[in-house]
């Protein structure tokens, strides 16, 4: 087990480095510096500014400085647009928000998705099953940027139950719509995967044996069927995590929740390279770490995997 974790880490760390270096090269290759504007600065001023941000140094020195800053002290450097704050400030402000509704979305998607899928599989071809399958087909065509306007229309404009946006320190009223919009399509996918996986497991010999022994159905499901059922779901969680963290951009823009997505898009329009890079690297790191955890969990649960 330990060697498996070590080997998996050995892949994750280069991946991270590649991400950091790749985004730095992209930024470096950008035509026109970040301080080129419609009103060109006098060359002396420009040279001064570039010296302040270290942009006058040769390429290899810049990249070594940046990478070592990121790796050793999680320092993503200063923002190119706002003189009074660094990229770390931006992340510190936005990330807790994203983390809050992202966490709840993930919990909602997994719990409701798995229970819906299990219920549909156990009661195959009953109304519960049709309901679950119907929902999961319907939700497939409702990605977050379609869900968000629809929710806003129904709950804010027509019913007037929920505030149309904002955060207010994360009160529950402000949390509901982002969480629903973000989790729906992943909940549907998880439900579908769980259902087909559970159906497959229920047809295997060891489940028949368990039933033949006279175990109550609840015990068969929880004790024997659940573990193999959850494996395909587990391997879907990685892509789902990426999707949700990407979807948070839409949520932030649409509901003005003030998470990192909002800063990301604003910086994209302002050409604030360092913020974009910092957020890209942060998100990439999270994704890679999450995939690492999922892989280890998978190896731990699945008895067939040898490490």
């Amino acid at each position, binding site marked *: 087990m330990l060697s498996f974790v070590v080997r998996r880490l050995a*892949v994750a760390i*280069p*991946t991270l480095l*590649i*991400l950091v270096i*790749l*985004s730095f090269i*992209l*930024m470096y*290759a*950008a*035509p026109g510096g970040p301080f080129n504007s419609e009103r060109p600065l006098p060359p002396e001023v420009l040279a001064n500014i570039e010296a302040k941000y270290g942009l006058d140094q040769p390429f290899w020195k810049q990249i070594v400085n940046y990478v070592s800053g990121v790796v050793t002290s999680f320092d993503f450097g200063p923002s190119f647009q706002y003189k009074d704050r660094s990229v770390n400030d931006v992340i510190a402000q936005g990330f807790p928000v994203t983390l809050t509704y992202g966490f709840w979305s993930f919990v909602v998607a997994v719990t409701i998705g798995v229970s819906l899928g299990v219920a549909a599989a156990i009661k195959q071809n009953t109304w519960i099953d049709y309901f679950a399958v119907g929902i999961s*087909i319907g939700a*497939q*065509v*409702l*990605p977050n*940027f*379609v869900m*968000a*306007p629809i929710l*806003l*229309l129904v709950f804010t*404009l027509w019913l007037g139950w929920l505030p149309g946006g904002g955060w207010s320190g994360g009160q529950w009223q402000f949390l509901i719509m982002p969480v629903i919009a973000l989790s729906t399509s992943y909940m549907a996918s998880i439900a579908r995967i769980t259902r087909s996986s559970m159906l497959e497991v229920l047809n295997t010999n060891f489940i028949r044996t368990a039933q033949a022994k006279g175990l109550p159905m609840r015990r068969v499901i929880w004790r024997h069927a659940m573990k193999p059922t959850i494996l395909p779901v587990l391997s879907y969680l*990685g892509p789902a995590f*990426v999707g949700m*963290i*990407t979807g948070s*951009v*839409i949520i932030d*823009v*649409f509901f003005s929740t003030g998470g990192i997505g909002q800063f*990301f*898009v604003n910086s*994209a*329009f302002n*050409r604030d*390279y360092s913020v*974009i*890079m910092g*957020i*890209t690297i942060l*998100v*990439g790191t999270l*994704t*890679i770490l999450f*995939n690492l955890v999922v892989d280890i969990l998978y190896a731990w649960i699945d008895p067939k995997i040898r490490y």
Partner: protein
Amino acid sequence: MLPNRAAVEGVADQMALAEVKGRSLWADARIRFFRNRAAVISLVMLGLVAAFALFGGMFAQYEPDFVNFSLIGSNAYLGVPSIETGHYFGTDSNGRDLFARTAMGTGISLMVGVVGALVAVIVGTLYGATAGYYGGRVDGIMMRIVDVLMSIPFMFVLILMLVIFGRSIFMLFLGIGLISWLDMARIARGQTLTIKNKEFVEVAVATGVRPSKIILRHIVPNLLGIVIVYATLLVPNMIIFESFISFLGLGVQEPATSLGALINEGSRTMQFGYMWQISFPLFFFVLTIFAFFFVGDGLRDALDPKDR
């Protein structure tokens, strides 16, 4: 001792009969596909959507980028969808004809989806087939690269690229092409692993056919079934992907538009009661995605023998 003539002819007849009744793999798949009602209806729907995207512009009374200045500010009563004014779907908040713009947006979204799927088919299939065919260390390295690329959140990298190199359709296609082939490569590799031990590949190897030719002539054609299925399922994902970027305002540039951009514009004005500005693009978006999913499902049932 010789078999009598009648019996021989009988056998020959039987064979001729069997030949008539024999069905190729593809014919078999076609029959299975057309038995699936949802898939057939979806196929017709897709045809209609494509026809709308191609020819809708001809029926529109206005150009998609024509700004009707007299309508700006009076959208609520003059820009309403109606036959008389010629704005079948109404106008957008800039006084442009929404019918023409929806046709244009549908076309661009479909194009993005198809191009993404094409890249996936070409690059992904060849990459996966090569990795699977050579096996061993080559396979290990090639698939590890795919793993690494897969664990990078590409939406962010793509937005970074769009910001740095400027927004254009070409960059969008490049970005979509960069990610769409990853899944396909994995699928093609898995399938190649089972094919490469078949006799016909062994024969080809034994007769000294070059590996590149074996991959192109013997392996890739046998991957086609599964490749077509996943390409069909990829198209809606690519459309969603593009719409996502356009929804943020980072995708297709004005005056061109896509369904995502139209949904974004519509969602900003729906609170003022201009419901048609979101409902028409949304309708076409949902219809297209639905249809592609059902056609893909139908194709999978028809072509992928594993899932039956």
